[in-house]
Structure formats: structure tokens, C-alpha cells
């Protein structure tokens, strides 16, 4: 049976060679390498057919089209929808133009985004936050008024806060492909377009809750969870139950002993692995409903993992050790007793962080 295996194609991304099956997209090939080589994706969602190509966050430069035709592609291409060719050379984070464009995309996505992260339920697990943190600027050049919309209840469980939406179309594809009938789509045009049900109709079917999981920002939120908590105070565990409608494999989020929300399980690229039904998601909020499998694996860089573990379990890294060893008391003649958080002067970090005193670029 081995001889019918498809011939693998070789592609080089940021100088790293990887072998993938023909037909794989550049993004998937880059994800196989992992780390910083994988371009960010705001609209592409692997489980949803036809998604991608819209946000332009994953634009990369193709320095050589293929071994047969090594001409570079004239424009940056969306890596999530461009299939690899044998001998293709792709530049992602090594190309200046790609990084400049990505910065511009962050800026474009944020000019009409309310930046209400302090009150947004998605904060801490938001794709846009991560994207902006990794690739964006700290300031904005946009001075005009941002577009705003009224909040809309779509059904008993879901609230749509269109002001936050970045129009990735993921929820539209979900409603098209996962649920039985098409329940919502896009109305209007340009920056006035909005995700909506027709005449504020309720979304009503067993799998509608999945639109909340696929939303990269806080535009579609779980009404049973809204404003209840911050994600970094909660503890996710993998759990399952015998569900007649779906696989029943979920992530259950605890605050103390209380189950405060249930979501589908996600992979390291924040993509749902198995869609779950509304009963599991919205109605089973007792520990007795679930068989707990164990803690969910959360990346260490994620804010969700903050404050979850005893300090002595975390191996102090080199920088921390060095900081502790070189710490010297500096009398900065301030009454620090009144400060809630003690503010340390930059001099204290000077030997450890050589650029701590430099002015901001």
C-alpha cells in the first residue's frame, strides 16, 4: 500500500524546509513547522470549508513559485488559500514588506474596533488581541469616529456586539456548514456591513452556539457567561459526557468549584476540534454533569495560564535568577507605602535589562 502514497512536495518557509502533501496551503505547511514561522490568521479556520483570504493578515511573499518556474509572485499572497508547489520558497517573518503589511492590517482592523478589551469577555483569548500584540503598533493614527452598532440578541443564548466584529465571515460559514439551515449572513456593504439575522430573527438550532467559539473577537458572546468573569481567573479542564446530539467532548471552565462556562475543545491554533451542541454548552453547568479528564493544556504564554500554578513549580528562568542576584536597593526618596503596586525605578533593572533606561523608540 505504501507505493500509492502521494509524492511529497518540498517547500522552504523562512529558510526552513518542510515536506508536505500536494495541495497543502502555505499556511498549513508553515504550521507544520510551527512557532513564528506560522503566519497569523484572523479569518481562516481550518474546519470551515471556504474560509480564508479575507483578513489579509496571513499575507506572505513567495520568493520562488516552484522548482519548475522559480519566478517570484508579483504580489503578496494570502498563505491560507495558496497551495504550495514543489520547490516553492516563501518568506514570512524574514521579509520586511510582509511585516510592514501585517502592521498595516492590524491598523486597518483596529480603526473600527472599539478597543473595549477591559470589559470584553473575549479578552485573554482574543485572536485580535494576540495579533495586535505580536504585530501592531502601540498607537493609532486614526482620529475619526469609529463605526458603532446597537447590541443585538440573537436567540436566548447569543448576543451579537457588531461594533467589535472584524467581518471574518467565520460565523457565516459555521451557520452554513454546521447547522441545518442558513441562519445569518452579511448585510450591507463596506465598513457599514454587518453580521446579522434577517430582521433580528433568533438563531435557533442545536449547534448555533458554535458561532461563539469560532468568533476571533468578542462580537458573538455567550449570554450565560457574559460579564461573569475574566478568562484568566478561570481554570479550564477537559471533560466529556454522554451526549445524544454531539460528541460531548468539551472544555469546562471553572471558577473555584463553579462551572461558569462550557466550550468546544480547541487546538493550538485556536481552532475548534469538534463542534458541540447547545445542550452541552449552555445547559450542563454542574460538575455532576461531566466526567472530568484533566486540566486542559494551555500555552505558557497565554494569560489563561497565569496564576494557576504554585510559584515553586515554575522553574525560575535565567533572567529571573539574574535579576534576583543583582537586585540592589535604590533609595528613590518616594513614599511607596501609599502605592497599591510598588513601582520600581528603572535603575534597579539596569544591569539586567541594558536598554531599560533608553527612551521609547
Amino acid at each position, binding site marked *: 500500500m505504501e507505493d500509492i502514497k502521494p509524492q511529497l512536495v518540498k517547500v522552504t518557509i523562512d529558510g526552513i524546509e518542510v515536506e508536505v502533501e500536494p495541495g497543502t496551503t502555505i499556511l498549513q505547511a508553515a504550521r507544520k513547522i510551527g512557532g513564528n514561522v506560522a503566519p497569523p490568521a*484572523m479569518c481562516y479556520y481550518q474546519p470551515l470549508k471556504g474560509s480564508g*483570504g479575507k483578513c489579509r*493578515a496571513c499575507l506572505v511573499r513567495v520568493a520562488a513559485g516552484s522548482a519548475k518556474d522559480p519566478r517570484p509572485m508579483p*504580489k503578496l499572497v494570502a498563505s491560507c*488559500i495558496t497551495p504550495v508547489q514543489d520547490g516553492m520558497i516563501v518568506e514570512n517573518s524574514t521579509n520586511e514588506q510582509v511585516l510592514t503589511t501585517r502592521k498595516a492590517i492590524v491598523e486597518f482592523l483596529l480603526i473600527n474596533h472599539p478597543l473595549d478589551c477591559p470589559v470584553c469577555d473575549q479578552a485573554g483569548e482574543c485572536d485580535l488581541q494576540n495579533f495586535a500584540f505580536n504585530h501592531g503598533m502601540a498607537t493609532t493614527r486614526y482620529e475619526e469616529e469609529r463605526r458603532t452598532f446597537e447590541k443585538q440578541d440573537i436567540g436566548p443564548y447569543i448576543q451579537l456586539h457588531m461594533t467589535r466584529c472584524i467581518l471574518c465571515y467565520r460565523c457565516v460559514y459555521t451557520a452554513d456548514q454546521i447547522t441545518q439551515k442558513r441562519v445569518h449572513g452579511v448585510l450591507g456593504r463596506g*465598513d457599514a456591513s454587518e453580521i446579522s439575522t434577517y430582521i433580528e430573527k433568533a438563531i435557533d438550532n442545536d449547534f448555533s452556539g458554535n458561532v461563539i467559539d469560532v468568533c476571533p473577537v468578542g462580537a458573538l458572546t455567550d449570554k450565560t457567561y457574559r460579564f461573569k468573569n475574566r478568562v484568566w481567573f478561570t481554570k479550564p479542564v477537559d471533560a466529556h459526557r454522554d451526549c445524544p446530539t454531539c460528541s460531548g467532548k468539551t472544555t469546562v471552565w471553572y471558577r473555584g468549584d463553579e462551572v461558569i462556562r462550557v466550550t468546544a475543545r480547541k487546538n493550538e491554533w485556536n481552532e475548534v476540534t469538534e463542534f458541540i451542541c447547545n445542550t452541552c454548552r449552555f445547559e450542563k453547568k454542574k460538575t455532576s454533569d461531566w466526567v472530568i479528564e484533566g486540566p486542559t493544556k494551555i500555552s505558557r504564554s497565554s494569560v489563561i495560564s497565569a496564576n494557576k500554578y504554585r510559584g515553586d513549580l515554575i522553574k525560575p528562568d535565567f533572567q529571573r535568577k539574574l535579576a534576583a542576584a543583582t537586585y540592589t536597593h535604590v533609595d528613590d526618596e518616594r513614599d511607596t507605602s501609599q502605592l497599591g503596586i510598588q513601582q520600581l525605578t528603572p535603575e534597579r533593572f539596569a544591569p539586567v535589562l541594558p536598554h531599560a533606561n533608553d527612551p521609547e523608540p
Partner: protein
Amino acid sequence: MGKKILLEHINVPGIETYDVYRKQGGYTAVEKAIKTMSPEGVVEEVKKAGVRGRGGAGFPMGMKWSFLAKPEGVPRYLVCNADESEPGTFKDHYLMKNIPHLLIEGMIVSSYALGANKSFIYVRGELMYVIRILEKAIAEAKAAGFLGKNILGSGYDLELVVHPGGGAYICGEETALLESLEGKRGNPRNKPPFPAVKGLYQCPTVVNNVESIATASWIINNGGDAYAAIGIGRSSGTKLISASGHIKKPGVYEIELGVPVEEFLYSDEWCGGIRDGHHLKALVAGGSSVPILPANLITKLANGEPRLMTYESLSDGGFQTGTMLGSGGFIVFDETACIVRNTWNFSRFYHHESCGQCSPCREGTGWMEKVLHRIEHGHGSMHDIDLLVDVAKKIEGNTICPLGDAAAWPVASAIRHFRDEFEWHITHPAEATQPGAVFKGEMALV
């Protein structure tokens, strides 16, 4: 006098009816093609003619036809793009309204060449009366046996469908047009796959402009070589130009490609020159989306040679000193036109028409419009100009379809050539916001 191919019989009374059109030699191309030529032969003639797409991109039509995939058992479609909505372009409207049979005849010949048994004409939704004219023409052609089952006893069937558009500029982009034709929201598709492989209903499809298709019947009657002999080099044939703005004789003109811009602009045969007592200030040569040119670059190339009405000559010098022929929307400005206001107006159009699918265009067009609005209304600051240039640069080339480029080019080119005018608006807000106020500083007028 230039050679007329499309508008040869435009002044014959009753040319919109079948009888008069037939008397003027109409439908002979259909007879010739279907009775004496193979479909491949027709494609070959069109290839020889070297006619380039008249919708704006200028892609050779014969080459587009030869790219059409021909898998067994899958229908192929020809779609005529009559969703002409570009500000400054109104040639297809004129052609369809006055000589509808020219398009119908072209559609029959082209469909025969491509092996399509069902072809569509996607007409801009606002032109309801043109749709009625076309439908009447189709009924007449059908009654005469040039459409329907077994055309001229050859066994070839063709049905022509006129489809009114949804009223969006974006539906003129070929893949958005196909989506709209399928009954969906007119969002452009990601390419590849190109329509030639997966187009309408996921079948191989050719999308051509009205004017391109209308040339097909002349090419069949007179041969591809005769067509290629007209014009200069790779810009063969004739082109309809929609002339508008501050000229004595606005209208639709058919020119042989290769006429000097100066002659076209000042000759009494065509535009007739700038209106009396005024001077040429700027020109948009190919519809609102192509870069605007200042007076000193319009009639002469950067190296001093005369600029011609061809694809190559107009784009000579890249975007630094050139522009594009585009769809032939020839908009002329005299010194009373305010470039800032005009740029804002164009920008407002693209903001309104962006489909909102991809982020650079959705957000960038709105941003540019708001900044231009600010400058025009006296609230701008100097860094706004650089901001506009930067935003335009970041939209260009990063979008799914060419609407992003079309929105970015007019802004970038206006600032490139008329930066002092933008600066004047910022430094003299009180004067600039007076009704009819125009920058009177140093500039080249012709």
C-alpha cells in the same frame, strides 16, 4: 476620419430594430461563423486580431478564450459584463442603448466559438430601460432564427439571458459578477481558481466586456488580420472613449488606437478642446480608478514625445508620469476644478462601493474618505497628506480584487501631482472652504 467599427451605423435611423440592422449587414458574421467556420477557427481569428479587453484591464481577449478549460460533460458559459458603473465611463450604456443587435450578434459568435449553449448578459441594475431594449432585440433575433434551438440548421443551440444587476459597482468585478449571477451576495472570489477553470456554477466561464464582445462580429466579417492592422502595435483596433468634463463636445467617440491625446482633446472631430476662456488643468484618462495626470504630462510623455491614445503610451513612465487607458472614461478638468474636492468625491465613491470583505479595502477606503473630507472642509493638518499616501500604499496590492487598487490610485496620484494644492487647503482653510474656491498657485496649465 478614423475608422469606425462599432459605431459605423450609429446614425442610421431605426438601427435599434432587427430589420434595419440586418439591412446594414447585420448578422452576416453569425452566418459566416456558424456555416463556414469551426469554433476553433473563430477563436483563432480573434487571437490574430489581438483585441484587448475593453473593460479596463486590457487582457487580450483571444488569449482569455484559449485559457477556457474544456472538460467533458461540463457546460461552459459566456458572460457579458455590462455592469458598467465606473464614474466617467458610459460607452457600454451608449452602445447597448443604440445598437443592441451589435452586442447580440457578438454574443452569438463568441458563444459559438466557446461552445457555450447558455450565455448571460449581466446589465447594470439601474439601466432597466436598456434591459428592455436588449430583451426586445433578443426576441427579434430569435424570431429570425439566429437564437434558440438549431441555429441556421447547424445543430448549434444558444439561449441568451439578460440579467439585471443588483446595483453595486463591485458586481463589475468578474468573480463578484458571477456570484451575483448565481444569486449570492456580490463578493469577489479568491483567485485562483480563475473563472476560465471554475466560474459560473463552478463551470468554465469567460467574462468579457460589452465592447470586446461587440468587436467579434466585425473580426469575423473582415478577418483578424484586418483588425490587427488598425491601431498601433499591441494596441490594435478601435476603442470607445467616453469623454466628459470641461470640454466643448462631451460624448462617446470611437477612435483608432494610436490617435495622439492632444488631437483627441483639441480636434473638432472629437472633444473640441477645453471650453472657451479656460485652460486644461488635469485629466483622468481611463475612468475614475486610474491615476490622474497634470496638464504638463497629458499631451507629452516625460521624454517629450507626444502621448498617444494606446495602452502602452498612456501607461508610459509607470505611475510616476503615466496613467492607464482603463475603460476609456476620459474626464477633463479645467482650472476651475478643485483636485482635492474631486479626489474626495472619487474616494467617497470607493468607500461606498467597497464590498467589505477584505480588511485593507473595507477599512482603508473609509479612512481615506474621512481624511480627505477633513482636508476639503478645512480641518486637515500637514501630516494628513503623508497619512493618505501611506494608507493608499498599504491598500494597493493587498486586496482580494482590484477595487482596492482602484481606490488607492486616484488618491496617491492626486497627491503625487497636486501636493501643493492639498497643502494650500491645509494652510488656508478659510479661503479653501469658500464655495467654488480653487487653488490659484503656480501650476502648469495648457
